[in-house]
């Protein structure tokens, strides 16, 4: 189950990172804060929403192994929360030192 959840998570990363980097570049001065926050929130939700619209057929790949859309969303948010949190600490530590 974890491997399937990770497969789904990986498929959301390109859009999440692309969107979050674009947001962070737009507000250059706040880059170390905006990038991880966007990765954890708007980028994460946007990539999930985009997949729901453009690749909704793919969800059956996960449904057929007993994984619901809610589980996929929660796992994606959890992974982005962890990675965004670590990135936030690292970037802000680097800018303050």
């Amino acid at each position, binding site marked *: 189950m974890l491997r*399937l959840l990770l*497969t789904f998570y990986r498929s959301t990363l390109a859009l999440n990172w692309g969107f979050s980097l674009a947001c962070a570049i737009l507000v250059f001065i706040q880059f170390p804060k905006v990038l991880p926050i966007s990765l954890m929130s708007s980028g994460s939700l946007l990539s999930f929403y985009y997949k729901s619209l453009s690749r909704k*057929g793919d*969800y*059956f790949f996960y*449904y057929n192994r*007993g994984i619901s859309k809610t589980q996929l969303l929660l796992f994606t948010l959890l992974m982005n929360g962890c990675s965004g949190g670590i990135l936030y600490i690292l970037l802000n530590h680097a800018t303050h030192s």
Partner: protein
Amino acid sequence: MPHILEVDSVQKHFDERSILTDIYLQCRTGEIIGLLGRNGSGKSTLMQIIFGTIDAQKFIRIDGKVYEAPYKTKDLIAYLPQHDFVPKHLSVRQAARLYPGKASAERFLDDPVLKPLSGSKTGSLSGGEVRYLEIKLLLNTPCRFIMLDEPFSGVSPVMVEQIQKLILETSPEKGIILSDHDYRNVLKITSRCCLIHQGSLKQISGREDLLRWGYILKA
């Protein structure tokens, strides 16, 4: 151990229109049930109601236990939608490792159709090859019941025969429900057949019944 899937009192309306009215269907391990019906008669809707991805008034029982959304329970039921469902960025080998599992992936890929394709991304396969891969993936899951929505659609006659062979080989261990417009190929492999006509389910014993209910014009 034989299992039983019971679908009872299914009713579905879209706006004012009744699509399904009081459907009852039973499928046991070892059975292949054919589901026929004209375009828009509700075959796919019924399958997705059974799977749990479309809401409706219904009772779905598997081995006597009622499920609101059977797909949320692992290894109970699988569904082949009409469209492709394997993510296009995965290779055939990756899909095999995620579904049947790492241990049995090589055995899964030891197949005249899939072996030459094992390194290819599923997005680069032909429609027939993807259909074959998806059906084999589902039939190799430990699910007790498998529903196949148009498994022969867009598939060449040779591939249809290979898909039929796969279904027949797996059927002793599973209950299978399949729907397709290619009724000849459906009748060829099913143990029992039903027709959705004006929202209700009619038992079909042969082509004469299909003629009687207006599904075909000549017997």
